[in-house]
């Protein structure tokens, strides 16, 4: 009984357990820490814990893939890459907390962020329906609370909306899982690839409802309706966290399902609707950006479109596709978080720097910051020399190669639409007319560091494209 699971099993899940347990450590430390410093104590410990988890996971990167806990969790390149993405995003979000939100709540917030992170990390490796479900719920439950953690009525509203809608979606997901279980008689994804299932309607309906749940979490149109409101309402760092972590985790699950749990996937019509909604969200997301006045809301729509691009890369489930999806996801992580970090920097109490108007004339107040901001926006718009540019090239070539040219076309159309929205902000920053100086809080150096890191990565990735080779999402 006690030699049922070997050390290998525990190694696989150790990173997420480290992160989860550090959360408890944060809570304890908060009791001990002096009141004036507790904000930084919590953030410090949190980031340290995340780093530890990241390092631990990273050390196993080159080990061959294997599944732990009887297929509950698969460790391997794919899992670890996603874990790293998630961890980095969590770190940046914590760094942003440095000057936003109430200090006395910081410990709890940090803990919740960490648990949410560990939930996403679980999704990254989850290979059976239970772990998928639990990871998803761990991630979401923490996020419901985090969204509501502000005195602004908008925040509470966003929490309520997120909770109700997300639970409904989870209902669909769960029901789908039940049907999948019924069809295959097993909760393992690997069991779902059995060719016999291709003819089983239970399997099909189950897969359908399952994908609905994933599409909701990825906020693909038309399941995106929640994200603009929630992003706008939630506190800035939480929005940043959500915009990457939720999507990364869910994308990992989807990739695993698409690559491992679909009978002869590349030719099967089973995934087509998912790619169709990806295409729709490229258009819808970019259109939604056009007349926004709140940067968080704008980024919500932008995220809808961007994740559409990422999913498009998986169309045809080619071996290269997943690598480019990861490349673009990483690019998206950094350019997106870069914008959030700058918004956090230029944030003041009354409005968390989230009103686009507050960027007006930024180039005259803080030229460097404005330049970097422009860089991130250019990247989101797919302008060179940024990772966004190369990422689009890679996705386009995948689509052309796998015969999904229509997705490529939609990608082009969507990007063309998005240009105006992104450049509107740039123009605003460089407009000669300067509005009265904002009361900008003295920001923590941490925030500057994260901005710098994002900027460097976004450029470097263009010329040293990072497309790891051992990231095929195996299920067995």
């Amino acid at each position, binding site marked *: 009984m006690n030699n049922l699971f070997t050390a290998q099993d525990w190694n696989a899940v150790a990173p997420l357990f480290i992160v989860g347990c550090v959360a408890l450590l944060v809570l304890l430390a908060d009791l001990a820490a002096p009141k004036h410093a507790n904000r930084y104590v919590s953030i410090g410990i949190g980031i340290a814990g995340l780093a530890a988890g990241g390092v631990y996971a990273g050390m196993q990167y080159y080990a061959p893939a294997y599944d732990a806990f009887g297929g509950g969790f698969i460790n391997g390149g794919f899992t670890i890459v996603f874990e790293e993405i998630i961890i980095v995003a969590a770190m940046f979000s914590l760094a942003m907390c440095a000057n936003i939100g109430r200090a006395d709540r910081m410990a709890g917030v940090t803990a919740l962020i960490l648990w949410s992170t560990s939930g996403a990390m679980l999704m990254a490796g989850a290979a059976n329906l239970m772990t998928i479900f639990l990871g998803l719920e761990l991630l979401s439950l923490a996020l419901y609370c985090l969204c509501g953690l502000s005195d602004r009525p908008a925040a509470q509203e966003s929490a309520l909306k997120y909770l109700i809608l997300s639970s409904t979606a989870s209902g669909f997901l769960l029901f789908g899982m039940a049907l999948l279980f019924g069809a295959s008689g097993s909760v393992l994804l690997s069991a779902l690839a059995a060719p016999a299932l291709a003819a089983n309607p239970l399997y099909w309906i189950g897969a359908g409802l399952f994908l609905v749940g994933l599409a909701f979490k990825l906020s693909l149109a038309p399941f995106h309706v929640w994200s603009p409101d929630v992003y706008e309402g939630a506190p800035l760092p939480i929005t940043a966290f959500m915009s990457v972590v939720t999507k990364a985790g869910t994308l990992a699950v989807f990739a695993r399902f698409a690559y491992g749990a679909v009978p002869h996937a590349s030719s099967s019509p089973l995934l087509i609707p998912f790619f169709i909604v990806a295409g729709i969200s490229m258009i819808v997301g970019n259109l939604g950006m056009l007349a926004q006045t709140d940067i968080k809301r704008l980024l919500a729509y932008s995220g809808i479109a961007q994740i559409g691009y990422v999913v498009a890369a998986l169309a045809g489930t080619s071996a*290269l596709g997943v690598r480019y999806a990861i490349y673009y996801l990483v690019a998206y992580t950094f350019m997106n978080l870069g914008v959030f970090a700058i918004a956090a920097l230029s944030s003041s109490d009354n409005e968390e720097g989230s009103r686009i108007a507050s960027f007006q004339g930024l180039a005259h107040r803080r*030229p460097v910051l404005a330049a970097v901001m422009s860089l991130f926006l250019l990247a989101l718009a797919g302008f*060179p020399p940024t990772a966004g540019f190369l990422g689009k090239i890679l996705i*386009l*070539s995948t689509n*052309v190669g796998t015969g999904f040219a229509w997705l*490529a076309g939609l990608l082009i159309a969507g990007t063309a639409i998005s240009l105006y929205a992104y450049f509107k902000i740039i*123009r605003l920053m460089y*407009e000669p007319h300067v509005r009265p100086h904002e009361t900008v809080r003295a920001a923590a150096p941490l925030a500057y560091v994260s901005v710098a890191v994002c900027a460097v990565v976004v450029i470097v990735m263009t010329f040293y494209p990072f497309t790891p080779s051992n990231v095929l999402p195996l299920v067995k």
Partner: protein
Amino acid sequence: MSLVLILLPLLAGAVLFALPATDRTASRAIGCVAAAITFLLPLVSQGDGNVTAHWLSRPFTASLHFAWSGISFWLVLLLALCTFCAILSTNMNRPRVMIALLLMLEGSMMGVFTARDVLAFALFWDLMLIPPFFALVGWGGHRETAWRYLIYNFAGGLLLLLATAAFGVIYGSTDVIGTSHQLLGAWAPWIFAAFAFAFAVKTPVFPLHTWMPATYADSPPPMVSVVSAVQSKAGVYGLLVICLPFLSAAMAQTRWIFIIMGLVSLLYGAYVALVQTDGKRVVAYSSLSHLGLIILGIFSLNPIAIAGVIVYIVAHGLFSAALFLILGYVEQREGTRSLTRLGGLGAHNPKLAGAFTIAALGALGLPGLAGFAGELVILTGVFKAGLFWPALIALIPIVLASAYMLRLLQDIINGPEVADIPQRADLTLTEALALAPLLAALVVVGCYPHALLSTGFSAMPSVAAAPAAVVGERP
């Protein structure tokens, strides 16, 4: 070596921001030196400054590969020269920023012209949209002009992206500029269509030109002189180095579409230029007309015509840059560009009048100047390719050109002096120096286009490879 051409201007542009915002002389000096170096480097250095670094191996081979061989050489020189003159003549509020933008523009366009890799080409292609956009935001009169310029050209850039990806996947590598290989198969026409759209927008060609007059009219003179002189050539350059060597079969299939588009641009631009009252718009529409001729020349798919195209690219660059700079001087002095308000400047500004006259004559294709050499050789080739009517029709705009160019020239410098404009002083030494090289080059190229022509002939490997129907020699 050729990386210097790209990085030096960019760095110089960045350095300028260290200077005080109102500084003019220092930034001008730095800018001119940088531009001068980029001009001299290809001339003095041996070889073609080949630099290459691996970039992608999947989904297709791509490398950061730059060199200034072939057509690139001339465009690099043209670009450096125009930038030099533009910087020298920069004389407006916030000069430092303008010069920085000019340098960044030069750097990015150096990338376009020296890239040996289609992906790198596409990268710089988009990059070179940004400085003019900022110039329009900072100095332009109307906000929507900037949008129109950016979105229109970026739409083209996106299709270029798509085409590049498809090209890479089909051909396996994008490190191809300078080589030649017929791309056949079902994809080829679509790839060509995407490329062609991007290039046609940039050039621009008739139905896709509406971003151009507004942009040229609104941009500050130094910027527009470079944009019209060199940036508009990027499209033509793309057609020459990407489409001709790889897709000339597809070009041959669709040539009539483009020949007609070219002819329409020729006539349309000329007729519209005939009635414009804004000096800059006259030149803008004349550019539409002239570039129509270039398109016609390219799609005649005849070696002689292509050789002429090379000459005409340079020629148009020289005289349009000069014209825009001169109009800039005039506007700066007299505060207006309206042909109806200006007049009689020649009496007090002989230097201005002289320079203006030479530039205008170059534009209307006066024999002995570069424009004429280009027109003549292009149309000779077009006719030789068996395109009788296009060659004949293409002669009408030449007559119209003399009409509208003389109108532009005479309405500004001839006639009795106009009372209600300031009539300020003649060209300063700097301004004259900024024009001199352009006009001198106009004459030299007009008499001795040999080198350009030979480049043009060597730029045509694919036509030899292409089916005989393409080359359409008269039987």
